[in-house]
């Protein structure tokens, strides 16, 4: 049965940049409905792992299976159409467009009206445009952005821009959501609210989530399982309490002296 198999599985994935092994022997699996954390020191290869899963880079070796099918070699937009959406560590909004248009764009792969219906505004055009608008506004409401709907995205405060990135990713209606440091640059209160929001949307949208985060409290607080990456390799995985007590992880994060 497809449903008992993991939603996402990577097998011995590695990526070499010049001589640098940014990711090697990367093996993870994510079951449907799980909320998984990916942590590790700066430069460990976390973002590279995301870029491999989303098709920005093609793995030097290895296999990535999503929903029972290999996604290696697909273009990023094809992977999004299969059901993986992401946010970016360094925010990549459509910065000159309105907040609403940012979200509307992400419905793109679900739009069925063709070029003729567009140009003559017949058939499915008005119906679909209306439902895109309604759904987009609804997403903005969830992320407390509705009063900014018609503002230009680049004028939003930093925390709101991060939330908009998540709202936009959700508009693509993914099965798997990849969040690259969603709380980066947020204050503790915003981070707390974000955590609750992530929990809530996971339930509401039946999502599976993979989350990169530096904020330990956030990761430990909401993730069911955690993978720890160092120098491109998984050095530990398990529940938050396993990870907290893992000597390898403590060494990686605090340095070897801390153990002695």
């Amino acid at each position, binding site marked *: 049965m497809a449903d008992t198999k993991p939603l996402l599985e990577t097998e011995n994935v590695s990526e070499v940049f010049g001589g640098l092994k940014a990711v090697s022997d990367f093996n993870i699996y994510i079951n449907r409905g799980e909320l998984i954390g990916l942590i590790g020191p700066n430069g460990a290869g976390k973002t590279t792992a995301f870029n491999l899963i989303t098709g*920005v880079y093609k793995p030097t070796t290895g296999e990535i299976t999503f929903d029972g099918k290999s996604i290696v070699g697909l*273009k990023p*937009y094809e992977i999004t159409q299969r059901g993986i959406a992401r946010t970016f560590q360094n925010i990549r909004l459509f910065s000159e467009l309105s907040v609403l248009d940012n979200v509307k*764009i992400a419905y793109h792969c679900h739009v069925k009206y063709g070029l003729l219906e*567009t140009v003559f505004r017949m058939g499915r055009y008005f119906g679909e445009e209306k439902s895109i608008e309604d759904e987009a506004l609804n997403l903005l409401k969830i992320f407390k952005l509705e009063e900014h709907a018609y503002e230009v995205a680049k004028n939003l405060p930093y925390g709101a821009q991060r939330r908009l990135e998540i709202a*936009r990713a959700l508009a693509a209606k993914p099965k798997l959501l990849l969040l690259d440091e969603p709380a980066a640059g947020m204050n503790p209160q915003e981070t707390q609210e974000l955590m609750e929001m992530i929990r809530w949307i996971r339930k509401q949208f039946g999502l599976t989530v993979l989350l990169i985060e530096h904020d330990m409290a956030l990761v430990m607080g909401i993730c069911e399982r955690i993978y720890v990456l160092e120098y491109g390799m998984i050095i530990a995985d398990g529940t938050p309490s396993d990870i907290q007590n893992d000597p390898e992880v403590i060494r990686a994060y605090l340095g070897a002296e801390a153990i002695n």
Partner: protein
Amino acid sequence: MNSARKKDLVMLVFALVLYGVLQMMISTKVIGSFWELNIILICVNVIMSVSLNLINGYTGQFSLGHAGFMAIGAYVGVVATVKFGLPLIVALIMGAIAAGCLGFLIGLPTLRLRGDYLAIATLGLGEIIRIVIMNIDYVGGAAGFKGIPHLTNFTWVFFVMLVTLFFIKNFVNSSHGRACIAIRENEIAAEAMGVNTTKYKVMAFTLGAAFAGVAGGLFAHQFYLISPTSFTFLSSFNYLIMVVMGGMGSITGSIAGAFVVTFISAALASFPEVRMIIYALALILMMFYRPQGLFGYMELTNVGPIKKFLDKVSGSKEVI
């Protein structure tokens, strides 16, 4: 009838009134033949600048070969009418298809290039098109194509321009248009949101080229003779100036740009020396004080009182 259609209808009524007034002034000779010609050129240039805006402004792909596609439309059009005796409408459609196909073939490989490289490649291809035409004796070679029937008139250019504006307005205000705009804004994010960036770049380029072909067909049938010198990279540059001056990503802007540029060169036609100076000065001032162009990303239909009026007429705040 929904509000977007009502707004379209209001715009159409406005356009028809404008047409009626201008047509009356032309037929009663209030507007003489010099300005009649320039009004026709403005309409042709609007088609050129709006279609170029689809590529450069909305999709953010820097193309500098638009005159090449215009040339294709012009030459295919005159061959259709002169050599095969076909009616103008068929000639325009054939010109559009030919320019569109060529746009597709050229766009597929060149749109992989970015920024300056794409600009140089399209500039070169525009020149290649012109030089190839110059060496085809069947269409008159460097001397040009003579004996073209004067089939273009104000009515033709005005309504073809309206169709073009309608087409491009509806395109950019759809999911397809949003995909193009997303590419301009952030190509990596666009791809991550499920936009097939290659497909939409090529689509914008092909559509833009096709409309340039239509403009070329109209342009050619206004004159007794066309020659390859009408389609040099300098004219491509001129269309680019219209787009930049009006605002990259605004249809109203492209109309304004085409109007201003054509009007200035017509008004200063008898002072060719000052013309270039004023032209250059206008551009420099523009770059200093309004680098986003006259309209930036704005449309006139979204400006304060005009928007209010349209909203009132249609009973909705929806953008058209």
